[in-house]
């Protein structure tokens, strides 16, 4: 017993990492330019937007929930970010402000986006906990609501930023690494610490493993679940700033489209159990990278973009079935 269990655990833990390394090796063999720093940084930048959301999604899924509304939420928060940016920029115009005014308008945009994200996350969490409605239904509903609000405010068109500095920020590179990638990794380190070293992180796992035991252990189950939705909201608020700055505009119809799919896929591929109870933040980072590399390779090999969804779907289903196999290894069915 003492010999076989650590082996199995390490496969649980390092499976996604092994898959990532294997994928990198295969990709390099198939297409040597894959391994060039510029290409790798490009992939990292592409995955960091939904990757940041996946970090928060990890908490929701471990706690036994799901959030389908993150895509629409990104659009809504991004729309408010650009509206705020434009309002503040135009309001300050008469004072002919310099860099200080630019900074102020960007900070205001970011603050509003984050507040919208937090509020939207709170609404989801509140309906799930106090409303006692299944997370799938709640966030399916708010997915429609958030998108509809964005379309209404933007008249189904585009939100254009009037500040070129906002776009510069979105494209900025610090010490050779794009800004979103920095933020992605810093947030991953932070949230990984929260999951592993704080009461809240432990409670999230407890609630997802066995809600009744958690309640009998004097854990405030509703509060834990609510906060996990608020964390996703926070991550969405941050992503909304980064993605709207990247394009210096935001389409009310297309912004955040399929983000829920990519975020959930990253979490699942990263080894977090859809049934809740256990998972890892760095696993989700790896999951996001795996998805990004697959996309990149399909592009490089000239596979039709219409077929990329097919490959993604197969990878997700494959990841879950492998997980099942590992978790149930040597155990009789329930």
């Amino acid at each position, binding site marked *: 017993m003492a010999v076989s*269990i650590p082996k199995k655990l390490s496969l649980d833990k390092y499976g996604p990492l092994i898959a990532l390394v294997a994928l990198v090796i295969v990709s390099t063999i198939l297409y040597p330019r894959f391994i060039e720093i510029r290409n790798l940084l490009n992939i990292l930048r592409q995955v960091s937007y939904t990757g940041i959301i996946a970090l928060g999604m990890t908490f929701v899924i471990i706690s036994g929930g799901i959030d389908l509304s993150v895509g629409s939420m990104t659009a809504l928060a991004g729309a408010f970010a650009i509206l705020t940016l434009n309002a503040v920029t135009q309001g300050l115009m008469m004072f002919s402000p310099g860099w200080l005014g630019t900074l102020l308008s960007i900070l205001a945009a970011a603050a509003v986006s984050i507040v919208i994200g937090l509020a939207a996350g709170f609404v989801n969490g509140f309906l799930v906990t106090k409303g006692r409605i299944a997370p799938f239904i709640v966030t399916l509903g708010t997915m429609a609501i958030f998108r509809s609000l964005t379309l209404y405010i933007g008249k189904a068109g585009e939100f254009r930023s009037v500040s070129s500095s906002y776009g510069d920020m979105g494209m900025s590179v610090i010490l050779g690494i794009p800004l979103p990638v920095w933020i992605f990794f810093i947030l991953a380190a932070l949230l990984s610490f929260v999951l592993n*070293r704080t*009461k809240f992180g*432990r409670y999230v796992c407890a609630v997802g*493993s*066995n809600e009744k035991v958690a*309640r*009998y*252990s004097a854990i405030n189950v509703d509060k834990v679940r609510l906060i996990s939705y608020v964390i996703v909201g926070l991550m969405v608020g941050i992503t909304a700033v980064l993605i709207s700055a990247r394009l210096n505009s935001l389409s009310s119809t297309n912004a955040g489209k399929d983000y829920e799919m990519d975020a959930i896929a990253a979490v699942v591929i990263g080894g977090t159990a859809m049934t809740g109870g256990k998972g890892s933040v760095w696993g989700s980072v790896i999951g996001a990278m795996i998805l990004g590399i697959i996309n990149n390779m399909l592009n490089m090999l000239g596979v039709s973009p219409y077929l990329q969804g097919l490959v993604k779907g197969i990878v997700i289903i494959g990841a879950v079935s492998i997980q099942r196999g590992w978790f149930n290894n040597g155990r009789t069915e329930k």
Partner: protein
Amino acid sequence: MVEIAKAIAFDSRFLIMDEPTTMLTSKEVEILFRLIERLKAHGVTIVYISHKLKEVKRICDRVMVLRDGEFISLEEIANIGIDEMARRMVGRELKEIFPEKKPAAGEVVLSVHNLSVEGLLHDISFDLHVGEVLGFAGLIGAGRTELAETIMGLRRAESGEISLRGKPLQLRKPWDAVHAGLSYLSEDRQGSGIITSFDVVKNITLTSLREYAKPFISQKAEIEKSKFYVDRFSIKIPSLFAKLEQLSGGNQQKVSLAKSIDTQPKIIIIDEPTRGIDVKAKRDIYVFVRGLANAGISVIFISSELEEIIGMCDRVLIMRSGRIVGELPSEKLSEEEIMYFATGIKGGY
């Protein structure tokens, strides 16, 4: 029952049954035993693992006793009685299974007054003294677990008062009870006591996690404390990071007990602590519970096993249909007397 049917459906010549009756009602047990007789007549070999010695005596031909993974004896069933089996399992005389009582008539620490929960509890009033082991006997469904859950803030009381050392206790959430020094060992170990997919350490510190997170969890402190409990209760585990699902019922129960005392309670409610665990683990738990009482902790001991209620408790309250219908001091305890109250022959209502 389905599991058993599945096992038999394969038409096996050799069958291992591991505690097959734990989840069965007595009627189902009868059906199972008749089935075993039939299988035996057809020449099927059966290894029957159980800690219920009466069953073993009744249906087995030979019996092997194991203790701590060691072979103790193998004998024809006719040559060994239940008492002797138990003695060999525990490694000492059965009479010594219950530790010596030390009744303490200390001051009242918990006082429950006219507590009612719609349809479940009616006008419950009792006092609990410092260092006392107060038994709650009764038939299953008499409302004992519901009473424990209400005291722990897991159920909302409709009326009545709970006071701690004379001060009324406000229970808005389960944490209020834990914070006030109350602790509960659930009867439903896997359903509400422990998380089977968590390791030993994370289970032990789950309720008391605040003590280890100031503000970040100190894994070193968690591990040290867990080691302490593992030694103290002689919990048998492959490692501190073994998942609870890998442990036997008795060891799971010891972890559960460690979890409920790690909050440093003044009062602990222990609900069916020995259900489904082996004789040796039972004795460990009895000794430990008495040790708690001797250390000045007040214990509410809920059990449906009359033998342990009589062996353990300084005083016993008997419940029926959500009411307390009788009280017996230690010296008046007998199985008959308790059953008179529990079934309504004595005690009114």
